[in-house]
């Protein structure tokens, strides 16, 4: 068989490597790398992984939210950065197991991409996110099978 639609993946990109700590409700940009067409090859979706640990055991219902800030949307002008007063564009949540404090790896899949963007996380656990968190993204798209 050939020409059926299959997933194909680009190389995983490190958007933040060893991020700073952040208190509960704080936004932190993953700004080691932006996800632009030269990096994501215009693949329309990406699977994200957050590596994080917390200052103490998190309560039930804890999440880390992911936001996309679109860049260079009118020449070199960017959309506003996400913040507590501008919760846009929310693209999903990393769900943290109740009682976790040690390092874990959390997936968020099928996030839509545009030409150029930067991602930020919002710590919606009740504990500090520890310094050293990572955010990685694997661009993905469909292609016809060989």
């Amino acid at each position, binding site marked *: *068989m050939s*020409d*059926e*639609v*299959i*997933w*194909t*993946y680009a190389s*995983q990109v490190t958007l933040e490597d060893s991020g700073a700590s952040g208190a509960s409700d704080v936004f932190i940009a993953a700004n080691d790398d932006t996800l632009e067409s030269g990096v994501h090859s215009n693949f329309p979706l990406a*699977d994200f*992984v957050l*590596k994080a640990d917390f200052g103490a055991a998190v309560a*039930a219902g804890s999440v880390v939210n992911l936001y996309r800030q679109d860049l260079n949307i009118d020449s070199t002008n960017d959309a506003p950065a996400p913040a507590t007063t501008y919760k846009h564009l929310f693209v999903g949540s990393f*769900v943290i*197991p*109740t*009682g*976790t404090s040690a390092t*874990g*790896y*959390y*997936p968020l*899949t*099928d996030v839509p991409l545009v030409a150029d963007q930067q991602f930020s996380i919002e710590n919606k656990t009740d504990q500090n996110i520890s310094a050293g968190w*990572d955010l*990685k993204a694997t661009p993905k798209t*469909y292609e*016809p*099978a060989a």
Partner: protein
Amino acid sequence: MAEEIVWTYASQVVLEGTGASIAVNGFQAADLSELTWRSDIHSNYPWADFALRIDFQAAVDGNSFINLYRQDVEIDGDNDAPAPAATYTYKFVGSFPIISGVGGASSPNYYSLTDIPIKYAQQFWIENKASQAVDHSWSLKATPKTYMPAPK
């Protein structure tokens, strides 16, 4: 007509052949060792249709169901996402509704759950949200599916 979008299916994969019994509210992995379900098995097809064969140790109440969860594995090097559990009901991908009153001495029934998104590598788990324990020898199978252009 030709080249219209049609479904095409890969071979059905056995994710669990003879699972152990599961208490009410218990979780269990469909974990045949060779079937942490990677791209070399599902060929990077984006979706799958699931079939659950299952029976219960006594007759179940109305509104009984079995939940299906996907645990993404090897997401950052060899590191996996947390396994689904009672304190981590993630990532829920769907439910198999169970016929009221089945169980006990009855024969297993077969339940369908379709169009579940799949990714590069994952393992699936079931959660027993029926009112009775799952009997041993349940099985979970998946048929990868995708679109293709119809032949000219």
